[in-house]
């Protein structure tokens, strides 16, 4: 049974007088614990696909099943609740809240659940430990480097133990060294912690560190590259 099952999914929207269809009749399976990379030129629909999988957008037609739940027909409110439990999102520009410390940023997903203060502390420190930033817990984003910020963002994305991680150009704004350590971290999360990761990237090196790479062009899957 696939962790992510996409069946004949189409996404279209109208912009003024024109109708744009970034994805047309797309089908795809992703197994649990797989690290998948999506590549393609701009306008290919890779970010649209990512948003659908992350539950940030809904398909116009088709089925989208994640961890045995069909999320295609959920309302905005239901999707919000689903995301809080099942998804961690990693952005290219980190999107940390500037007025909160690293600790407080990582805490945000846990406040949506019913955890006591001590339970939260335990989980947050565990997440920060995993990304190697326990000594920076009380620093604000402005006091961290780009690489460190992205690691805080990853800690935030995993602290509530979601099954799925979604990453939109996670290394796009980092230098080579930081990028490599982030990719190693993602691999570790997929391999050791069985997280399913879907990543959009422009960087062939980043794609190389994933288990499988899919190429999209004009809303269609055209090529698959399998790595070990």
């Amino acid at each position, binding site marked *: 049974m696939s962790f992510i099952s996409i069946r004949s999914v189409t996404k279209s929207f109208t912009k003024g007088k024109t109708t744009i269809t970034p994805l047309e009749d797309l089908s795809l399976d992703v197994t649990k614990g797989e690290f998948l990379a999506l590549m393609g030129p701009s306008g290919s629909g890779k970010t649209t696909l990512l948003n659908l999988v992350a539950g940030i957008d809904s398909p116009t037609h088709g089925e989208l099943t994640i961890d045995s739940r069909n999320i295609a027909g959920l309302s905005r409110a239901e999707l919000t609740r689903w995301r809080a439990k099942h998804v961690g999102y990693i952005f290219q520009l980190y999107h940390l809240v500037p007025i909160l410390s690293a600790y407080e940023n990582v805490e945000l997903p846990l406040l949506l659940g019913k955890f006591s203060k001590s339970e939260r502390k335990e989980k947050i420190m565990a997440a920060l430990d995993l990304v190697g930033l326990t000594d920076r817990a009380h620093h604000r984003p402005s006091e961290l480097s780009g690489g460190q910020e992205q690691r805080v963002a990853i800690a*935030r994305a995993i602290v509530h133990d979601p099954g799925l991680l979604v990453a939109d150009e996670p290394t796009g704004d980092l230098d080579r060294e930081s990028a490599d350590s982030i990719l190693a971290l993602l691999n570790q999360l997929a391999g050791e912690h069985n997280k399913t990761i879907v990543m959009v990237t422009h960087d062939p090196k980043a794609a190389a560190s994933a288990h499988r790479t899919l190429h999209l062009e004009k809303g269609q899957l055209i090529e698959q590259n399998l790595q070990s």
Partner: protein
Amino acid sequence: MLPFTYALRNLFRDPSRLAQTVGGSALVVLLLIAAVALNEGMDSVLSASGSSKNVILVGKGSEESIERSEVHLDAESAAATSIRGLDGRLGTTAVSGEIYYQAPLETESGHKDQALLRGVLEKALLVHTKVRLLEGHFPGPGEVMVGHLAHRKLGVDADELSLGMPVKFGDSRFIISGVFAAPGTVLESEIWFDRNDLATLTQRDTLSAIIIRLDSAELDDVQVFSLQRNDLELAAMGEDVYYSKLGVFYQPIKIMTWVTAALVSAGALFGGLNTLYAAFAARIQEMATLQSIGYTRFALLVSLIQESLLATLTGTLIACLIAYFLLDGRTVPFSIGTFTLTLSPQVIFTGLITGSLLGTIGTLPPAFRCLLPPLPKALRSA
């Protein structure tokens, strides 16, 4: 729900925006408090001045203004004897014929200004039951009694109208024999003369009005009297009705006050909305990120409102403090008397409601704009 510290810290993100929101809401609340206090002050002094137990007899056609009224002297004794059930004390019926006059009065220092003069006899105290002598005695010939707020109406210091000081009406000199209080009424701004003195001074052989205090009698009984004695050409009305009618004249000035408050508030509001729209627009991406984590738009809205309320209620507090130090207890002279601005519970409550509304309803339009866009688009906005 988002933690409260998030809302609190967001306030200090942009100190100039915070200053503007606090200052703007302080201004709006202060204006509203001032307008309400002014309204209330005017209304309460007018309503307190007239008693429902008193009936005024004026010359027919002069119901709107006692100054122009002419009542024959005979009417006083006629009313006292013909109407049954009037109040009285020690054999004297509570029927007071009075002369009302507005004329310039000069104080010792040479300051001259329009004053409210009332010519009375001692039985006036039977009718104006709120009047209490603070010091001295009722005026005899050559003497006057001043209300303790009369100095505000004349625009002089209180000691110029204290016991023993002289005042001049035209060429005639009078000594202040007493100071009285009549809390919350327009009477406190008046200067009371012996009726015969005032009659001579103003060359009147008629009264302005007769004020009657009822016991078991009713307004109808007085009206019947005025109809029976058609020759006297009298009109009867309740004293409270007379004063409430006067309130209608001041409606336009009240409207002017409210319109000013509304216009300046509108300016402040529009400026505040502009600032809020800009401030929230800069946070669309952040709001979208929080939504992607799993926070509902309702939770975000609550946090935004918390932020605004903190600012507007701080502004409200500042406004109340300013109002307390600058406005509370201030006496404002107007045509027929002086009223006091009071920060009554009602006034404070109005201020609080306004501040709360500013923080809640005022935040909604910019907040909606910030939270409504679809997530994918919002995540990309810089």
